[in-house]
């Protein structure tokens, strides 16, 4: 079996991360934004696992577990907030949620 070089993993995770950033920055649906954040986190996870494998150090994988639990919590709270906002404003369009401006 052919060994996949580290750079591939890193490139993939870079691409994933960028997609996530773009999603956060340019999408206007809150749920999509949340999903993009998840994507960013997973891109980081991928990097961590790849380095862990490459360096033979398990602490990277431990960190992944942490990130996943944080991501789960974040998704839960984030979605709860989205639902709360939706109840109040009947929209999840971020362009309409700009209370800071007022």
């Amino acid at each position, binding site marked *: 079996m052919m060994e996949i070089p580290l750079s591939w993993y890193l490139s993939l995770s870079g691409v994933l991360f960028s997609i996530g950033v773009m999603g*956060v*920055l340019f999408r206007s649906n809150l749920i999509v934004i949340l999903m993009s954040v998840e994507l960013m986190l997973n891109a980081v996870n991928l990097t961590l696992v790849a380095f862990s494998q490459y360096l033979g150090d398990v602490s990277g994988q431990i960190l992944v577990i942490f990130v996943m639990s944080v991501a789960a919590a974040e998704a839960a709270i984030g979605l709860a907030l989205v639902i709360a906002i939706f109840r109040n404003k009947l929209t999840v369009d*971020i362009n309409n949620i*700009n*209370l*800071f401006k007022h």
Partner: protein
Amino acid sequence: MNLQLLVVLIVGLPLVGALVNGLIPLFYAPARQWKTLIGAVGSLVVMVPFALALYLFSQGTGGLPDVAALYTWMAVGDFSVSVAYRVDELSLIMTLIVTGVGGLIHVYATGYMADDRSFWKFFAYLNLFIFMMLNLVLANNLLLLFLGWEGVGLCSWLLIGFWYDKRKNSAAASKAFIVNRVGDFAFLLAMFIVVRDVGSLDFDAVLAGTAGMSAEAVTMVVLLLFIGATGKSAQIPLFIWLPDAMAGPTPVSALIHAATMVTSGLYLLARMSPMVLMAPDIMVLIAIIGAVTALVAATIALTRSDIKQVLAYSTVSQLGFMFMAAGVGAFFVAIFHVLTHAFFKACLFLGSGSVIHGMHHVEHELRHRGYDGAFDSQDMRLMGGLREFMPVTRWTYLLSTLAIAGIPLTAGFFSKDEILFKAFEYGYDGQLYAWLAWAIGLGTALLTAFYMTRSYMLTFEGSGRWPMPDQVHPHESPRSMTLPLIVLAGLAMVGGFIGLPKVAEKLGFSNWIHGYLAGHAGHAGPVAEPELHAHVPVGLEIALILAGSLIAIGGVVWAWRFYGRYELGGDELVQGRFGRLYRWWKVGYGFNELYDRTVVRPVISSAEKLFAPFDQRIVDGLVNAVARVMQAFGWLFARLQTGVVQNYALAIVLGVVLVMLLLVF
């Protein structure tokens, strides 16, 4: 009996009465109708202290002065003020006047106010007044006296504005309170100086400490106390509140604005008499102010057609006489006149109240018969001929008029004559200003006899001048009102014998009140006297007494014949005789107008047109201007804030990229 307990009862009972009559009906509305009970409680809590004071009085002067100290009111460091009451000859006499005349007026009020819906409140206020007045006269230090002093002012305010539905009454009440506060301001300053220089406000300590004060400080203190007294005792320049104060119910005018409260200025000067004597310059001022006030008020009284206004100005005038006495060092005579004046002036006011009561009835009847013109139940122009309908009122009013005029052997004769004699004597001794006061006093005495007889004639003699006099007429007032009148008129007749003129010594009689207050061999009184070097010869003294009597009799007879013949037309004749001067009197020498223009309106309009806008525009404007500058900066930076979260996120990302680029290169 133990003095402490006695004093607590004397001072405390009226307070208990005020609380019972005031608080129970206030919180429990049905109690407001228990008029008999309220009247009885209200009167008893004044009469019992009177009896107790009589008992104290009957104990003689052996143990006096005696002090009943209750507790420390306030104390800081070495300075301490107690709630302590002082029983001595002066405070006893004043207590007797306050509770004695006060008790009679309470009885009178049960009749006079019987139909008033706020009967309970009236008695609560009256009792509170007696409590405050007793604090004033019994206090052992200046500060407790001041508590009474302001307290009676408060009651005066409450009672002048008793019928507060009329804007005018409430304004008169406020005016009285505020003018009095001007006097109180001076009183406070006097106390500050005393505390600074003596370190105590107890009378004994203050009078003993006077020796250690500089002459300027003593002069200043006496001057300030005198200004305080001019406020409370309605002297020039602060007398303007008293005539307006007649807006209150008539028993109030009799009690507060004739017999008791307005004399507290005199009491203060008598109490501080050793100190006053050390400020001869201020004594000149006191005598002259007193004499001029007496004259000015008497001339104004001449022009008034409201019966209570005549009496009000007459009170100012009589108070002027008392100050004149104080100004020539005859403090005991001032107190003597306070006493006799309490008798006849209370009687006159209560008599006028009885008349007003009767005229109210007339008005009521007239309205009943469909009369809808203007009617003023206090206007003497609508009275006349009341002697037929109100015989008791008429006789008591007449006797009191004779007393105030100074007809020989009445109470007013002895006290007024003593004032004039003392002024003459002081002048004879070399203080020439006293002669000036004496001359003015003599002229005022004539005027007094004249205008008081005028008020009697216009009210009781002649024929009725109200509309439809043949169909409606007033009735005599009930027994509860006439009884006090009879007692007071009796006292106004005989009360003067306690202060016989000096010449009576030749016949073996002594001047009791002089001995009691100012002291004699073997007894030191609380009131000081100046030392005289020259003595008026007996012949001259008799001549002065005769002159005084003639002036009084002349004034009465003159007015009697004048108004007996012309009735109302008499006023026009007087007006014709004096012309411009009369108009000047009519407007009260323009004092009200003057104060209005120089003090009241400038203060109010500066507050409204200068200070309030200044506060809004300048002081607050500066604050807001600073805020606006900040806001301008804020507005500039706010341009950067779009409020869209994604923009902020973009900024973060760009920032991260920038940092990474910087790290890499």
